């Protein structure tokens, strides 16, 4: 793509994204630099270029020149020069390699700017200009065309479900025409952590829920969102929605995934153009609800546990206490790490970063924060409720030869179900 065209596409995409909220944010930054103090990438490198709001510099520049109240003056007097393709190229690394859209910066900003949301928006323009890490582009295309970013196509998924049902002697309904609950999975689980698929089935059956998987809508991850391809994002989201409508589901359950929650729970209705005709829950929320109602019969997990908060589920998504309620139901000794809940540190692999191998070295540096946090609690096992975090922890564990393994909340629940074999 010629450079001029790249810039034009980026600018047009930026303009499409600017709205009142983004404009308020762009106008509000006072260059205090405090957002850097919240960002794990800055924390471990002390490199000022990782300052969160700096990641938005070309976006801000474009806003002031193309869309802000004084845009006409900025253009006439060239007070903000046109964004160049070189600048956008430079910024690619900042927007994709060193941002997990974790939102810690948004929590810090004294002006209340949601910097993370702006990064997501900026990615649209970068995608339009073709300036995104190759892996992200590739997996998005795969997801769009094949139905899964990691090759878990409907055929592969169907086959897996069959042998998982067989191997683990668990019933897994597929493509029911009428179900109360539509369950979804992430490709990470389907391909790497299939025990999570089994766990989901076990729990649903234990609860006696009328549930199903649908081959026309099972992939909860949304690389369109992560890469900045809004068309793909919408396409992937609509698949899930249409599948839910097709089986008249009252609830759609999202798996242990972070951005999947953001994509459907908070962005889904806006993609759909109307309120969703069903409830959306993260699996942890669902489990907490069941535990509260006394329907989840669990054996005690007699261990000391610390919980890693997946950013999109907890800080950004609002399901802060749900995982803890489930841990309580499991009877663990919960030792919160510091900081925890909303201010917990990101695993470093979200937002597409773990798929972007150019960012590996940087990500490993940030992983040290998590290792230290967990070791400081002295807990026997860390638990989380996001497969991408889990994947990041596994990769970090291998890299540092760490002797601590991350566990899945979902799998722990399934492993501790009290089954009455009557």
């Amino acid at each position: 793509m010629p450079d001029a065209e790249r810039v034009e596409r980026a600018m047009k995409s930026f303009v499409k994204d600017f709205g009142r909220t983004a404009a308020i944010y762009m106008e509000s930054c006072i260059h205090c630099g405090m957002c850097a103090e919240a960002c794990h990438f800055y924390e471990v490198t002390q490199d000022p270029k990782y300052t969160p709001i700096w990641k938005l510099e070309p976006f801000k520049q474009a806003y002031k020149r193309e869309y802000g109240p004084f845009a006409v003056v900025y253009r006439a007097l060239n007070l903000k020069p046109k964004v160049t393709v070189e600048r956008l190229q430079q910024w690619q690394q900042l927007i994709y390699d060193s941002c997990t859209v974790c939102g810690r910066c948004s929590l810090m900003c004294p002006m209340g700017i949601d910097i993370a949301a702006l990064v997501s928006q900026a990615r649209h323009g970068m995608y339009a200009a073709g300036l995104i890490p190759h892996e992200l582009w590739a997996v998005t295309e795969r997801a769009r065309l094949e139905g899964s970013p990691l090759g878990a196509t409907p055929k592969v998924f169907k086959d897996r479900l069959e042998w998982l049902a067989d191997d683990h002697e668990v019933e897994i309904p597929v493509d029911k025409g009428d179900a109360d609950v539509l369950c979804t999975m992430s490709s990470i689980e389907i391909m790497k952590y299939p025990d999570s698929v089994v766990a989901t089935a076990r729990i649903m059956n234990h609860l006696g829920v009328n549930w199903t998987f649908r081959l026309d809508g099972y992939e909860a991850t949304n690389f369109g969102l992560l890469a900045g391809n809004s068309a793909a994002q919408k396409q992937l989201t609509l698949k899930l929605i249409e599948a839910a409508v097709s089986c008249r589901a009252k609830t759609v359950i999202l798996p242990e995934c972070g951005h999947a929650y953001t994509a459907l729970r908070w962005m889904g209705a806006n993609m759909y153009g109307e309120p969703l005709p069903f409830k959306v829950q993260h699996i942890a929320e669902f489990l907490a609800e069941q535990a509260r109602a006394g329907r989840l019969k669990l054996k005690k997990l007699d261990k000391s546990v610390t919980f890693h908060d997946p950013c999109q589920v907890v800080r950004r998504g609002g399901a802060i206490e749900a995982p803890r309620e489930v841990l309580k139901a499991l009877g663990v000794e919960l030792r919160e790490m510091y900081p925890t809940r909303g201010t917990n540190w990101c695993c470093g692999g979200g937002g597409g970063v773990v798929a972007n191998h150019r960012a590996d070295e940087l990500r490993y540096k940030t992983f040290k924060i998590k290792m230290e946090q967990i070791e400081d609690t002295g807990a026997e096992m860390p638990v989380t409720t996001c497969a991408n975090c889990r994947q990041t922890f596994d990769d970090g564990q291998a890299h540092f030869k760490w002797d601590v393994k991350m566990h899945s909340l979902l799998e722990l629940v399934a492993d501790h179900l009290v089954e009455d074999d009557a």
Partner: protein
Amino acid sequence: MSSITVGDFLRSRGVTRRDFLRFCTATTVALGLPATMTPRVAAALEQARRPSVIWLPFQECTGCTESITRAHGATLESLIFEAISLDYQHTLQAAAGDAAERVREQAMKDNWGRYLLIVDGSIPTGNPGYSTIAGHDNLSMLREAADGAAAIVALGSCAAFGGIPGAQPDPTGAVSVADVIKDKPIVNVSGCPPIPVVITAVLTQYVTFGTLPELDALGRPKAFYGQTIHDRCYRRPFYERGQFADSFDDEGARLGWCLYKLGCRGPTTYNACATVKWNNGTSFPIEAGHGCIGCAEPGFWDNGGFYRPLSTGNWGSARTVGAAIGVGAALGVASAALARKRQRDAEGA
């Protein structure tokens, strides 16, 4: 110039040596000169010839004359007027009409190049008929008199800066002496009216040393106009502590608090009122409970209402603010509309 000396003249009037020396000391100090200079002042004055002084009154109210010549008992200031040969002064002279004019012309001719010219009142530059003396308009009379003067004292704010006649709408086109005369030394003794001792000190210096005192940027003697009223005001501690009278005769006013809120121009007015005071050191406006109106400053009459505090300005009006709101709102709506259109175009394309 009179043939007898100032010393002789004073002695002939029964002024004792002691009184004379007291006058010299007071005047030396008032001029800001070291007290050790008193004997020099006394010696010089003693031997000085009584200089000729011509006083031209233009668009004036005679207030300056009233102030200068007001004698409450035998004041030392009035002595100097006996020491000079005041050859022309409308209020004090006995002669009138042609006789008076002839005296003036003769004095000017006899002392050409050496007489001191005192001017009070402003000079009209509009229709010359606005102010005339014996059929002569002020402007030409001033030019003619200035030609033969050794120096000019512009007495009062009118002569110094244009004063009240020059206030808006300035119907006569009133100007100061300095606006007309450019080639003679001019001392601006401003004030409405000025303080008596200031004029006598200037005259004394001239009579004694033949020089004019050091002047500030506005041509006023630094010795008397070098500090603001504010800096020498006895109510300053109240200003510092933030204790102000809110209205005339209220609690604060009766306690003698600062009059800033009532419009006092003390901070921006340079004069000696706070130290020398008026009526032989009796009092001055602030002490009497009214704020300074800044009468020694140019344009004091047009400097905002006398009762509006200095800190208020001509910030505009409800109308100008309303207009600004209208324009700002229009620009805001326009820029938002433009941005929205750009967005629609970007989405459509």
